[in-house]
């Protein structure tokens, strides 16, 4: 009992519990049983190395790789890598003390720092980059507050001042001299800079957490994992990551669908075959035989809005649908802004994802006449030019945010289209609470066909699965 109280005083258990609370807050399902497992694991280990503790927590609390970034970010908050400037800075402080604060942050220091950063980035020296990120926030990202406890740290300020983006060309040069070709060098340089930016942001978070308590930061600063990230709020690097997720997602869905089809494959009892087979076991029907079930496959017509605001969402959905094309009988895809353009031919079987994306982006021009989204006009044009695409066997899928710039909605055309098709759905990448605000025509269209909220990869995957299943 005494011992327990002593542990409690150290704050370790408190920290452990608030870490778990934060994980739960971020959407990880951490049960009491896992909590106890984690404690058991920590008891079995030595506490000499931070990474061992990290691995032990990961092994017991984490159950899905997609949650890894969230877990890592929170772990860094609650069990930070270093406190303040860390031990190294304390050693250096003697020599730097003479120069005072001014020398730590001036144009000359900035230049020297940039040079060092360039060197580290060119060599991709992770250890040094981590130190540099911490140093950068400490020196260039400080935001002095009005009083004690009110000062803060800003990754944004630090990044603006040091502006690592300017170093891209020089990193590319360094990579080229290593024998990489220029496309690749560009890509690698971009990726390293992106990683460094994340390290700087992490470090700013760590410092803020130190001053205001990790709970404060955990609530506001943790981004959702990639499969729960909204399409509309994704950054460029997120989009790239999402694109990498599409193919694995399609494969997962396909294997799930095949399994489910197999499970439902047994049709009604085939009496004749069962009786005949029972002859070899003396008339006892040991094995029953069933008539095969005819699989039903949907014919799909996809109509997507590719105007700037929702283009990413349309592309992801198209890629996913076409990656699963063998689950459908036939897929036809059209893009529109205020005019309709067929894009089915871009999706050849086994085509390269990056190429398809590039082709799609290039063909956007065909879908626009004046370039302002006009759903009414697009629907009318579709009915005029491609009415043959829809039939009693096909399902209609419309993708878009239903924001039509206050133009004529032509709801009657939509109800005719929906009437021709076997099923009709509307996928809207906006949160349901935004439907009907501003120029959104979601309520009007939603009254005619089923409108489904589809904001992230998880929701998209579920929808496509139900569509094909």
């Amino acid at each position, binding site marked *: 009992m005494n011992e327990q109280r002593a542990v409690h005083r150290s704050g370790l258990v408190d920290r452990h519990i608030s870490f778990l609370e934060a994980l739960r807050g971020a959407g990880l399902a951490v049960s009491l049983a896992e909590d106890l*497992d984690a404690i058991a694991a920590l008891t079995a280990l030595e506490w000499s190395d931070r*990474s061992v503790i990290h*691995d032990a927590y990961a092994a017991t609390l984490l159950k899905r790789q997609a949650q890894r970034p969230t877990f890592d970010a929170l772990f860094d908050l609650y069990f930070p890598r270093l406190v303040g400037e860390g031990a190294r800075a304390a050693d250096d402080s003697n020599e730097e003390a003479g120069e005072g604060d001014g020398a730590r942050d001036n144009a000359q220091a900035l230049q020297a720092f940039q040079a060092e950063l360039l060197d580290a980035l060119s060599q991709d020296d992770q250890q040094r980059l981590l130190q540099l990120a911490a140093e950068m926030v400490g020196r260039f990202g400080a935001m002095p507050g009005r009083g004690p406890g009110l000062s803060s740290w800003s990754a944004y300020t630090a990044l603006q001042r040091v502006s690592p983006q300017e170093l891209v060309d020089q990193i590319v040069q360094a990579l080229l001299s290593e024998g990489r070709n220029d496309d690749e060098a560009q890509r690698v340089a971009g990726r390293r800079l992106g990683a460094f930016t994340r390290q700087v942001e992490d470090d700013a978070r760590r410092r803020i957490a130190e001053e205001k308590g990790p709970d404060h930061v955990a609530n506001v600063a943790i981004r959702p994992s990639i499969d729960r990230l909204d399409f509309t709020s994704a950054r460029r690097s997120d989009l790239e990551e999402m694109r990498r997720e599409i193919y694995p997602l399609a494969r997962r869905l396909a*294997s799930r669908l095949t*399994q489910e089809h197999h499970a439902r494959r047994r049709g009604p009892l085939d009496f004749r075959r069962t009786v005949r087979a029972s002859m070899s076991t003396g008339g006892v029907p040991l094995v029953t035989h069933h008539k095969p079930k005819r699989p039903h496959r949907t014919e799909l017509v996809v109509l997507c809005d590719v105007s700037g605001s929702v283009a990413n969402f349309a592309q992801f959905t198209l890629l996913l649908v076409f990656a699963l094309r063998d689950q459908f009988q036939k897929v036809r895809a059209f893009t529109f802004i205020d005019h309709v353009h067929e894009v089915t031919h871009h999706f050849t079987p086994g085509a390269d994802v*990056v190429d398809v994306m590039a082709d799609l982006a290039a063909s956007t021009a065909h879908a626009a006449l004046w370039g302002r989204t006009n759903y009414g006009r697009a629907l009318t044009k579709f009915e005029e030019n491609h009415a043959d695409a829809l039939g009693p066997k096909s399902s209609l899928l419309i993708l878009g945010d239903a924001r039509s710039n206050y133009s004529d909605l032509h709801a009657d055309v939509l109800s005719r289209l929906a009437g021709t098709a076997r099923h009709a759905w509307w996928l809207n990448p906006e949160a349901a609470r935004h439907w009907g605000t501003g120029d959104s025509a979601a309520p009007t269209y939603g009254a005619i066909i089923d409108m489904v909220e589809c904001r992230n990869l998880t929701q998209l995957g579920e929808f496509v699965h139900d569509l094909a299943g």
Partner: protein
Amino acid sequence: MTWFASPADAAARLTAVGYLADPATATTTFLAGALEKPMLVEGPAGVGKTELAKAVARATGAELVRLQCYEGLDEARALYEWNYKKQLLRIQASANDQEWSATHDDIFTEEFLLTRPLLTAIRREEPTVLLIDEVDKTDVEVEGLLLEVLSDFQVTIPELGTVEAIRRPLVVLTSNASRELSEAVKRRCLYLHLDYPDAEREREIVASQVPGLDDRVAEQLVATIGRLRELELKKAPSIAESVDWARTLIALEIRDLDDKAINDTLGVVLKHASDHDRAIRELRLKK
């Protein structure tokens, strides 16, 4: 019996049997032994998930019992089955005047029990590593079956009673994540995600698996694999492919991995036509 003394001990003993484990793998393996909890290993194909279980068995001198999962796997294949043919023979051979209750007691005994991997692993008295491979390939019903085995290490056979583990096996489940496993199974397991290794570790792995490989070629090979993984490919090459590639280079007696050599042997690492084209285009390989 303790399986490993510490994470460092686990890493060292796995290395000794030819499996180079990273710190996270070593820690989780150690915990699986120390906490007597099953270990769920996920990751892309070919990063050494199954190999980890085999290596643990080799390192600890335990015997490996393997249950390969597939669609349609059922209790009779995973747990136990009554040898009904033998039971029939027994009934026919018995004298006519024997009481039914006596016969009944006779035919539901050890003699007529066919043990399958799960039951075998539980009943073994020597140290055992139980590998449940590709658990995501099974139907959801089998997961329910696994629950009893994984949490309490016991199996209930209605006719015989509950069989408890004499010595708890170290259980390794592998999954390609083609299907989400149920929360109940995941909760009972330690989770480990195996990913592609960093360049240094990969070079060590290739060197240890393919002894005759020249150091310079190994370095070129690992660098090229690293560049391929950065591309957006349908199937990025994994460790198994690196090792295959190294073996190919030895067989073809290629001493320098230049553009032509890469081009000629790319089929060993990339298995999609579109990936092939992309690699040639992005790495600017000359035909």
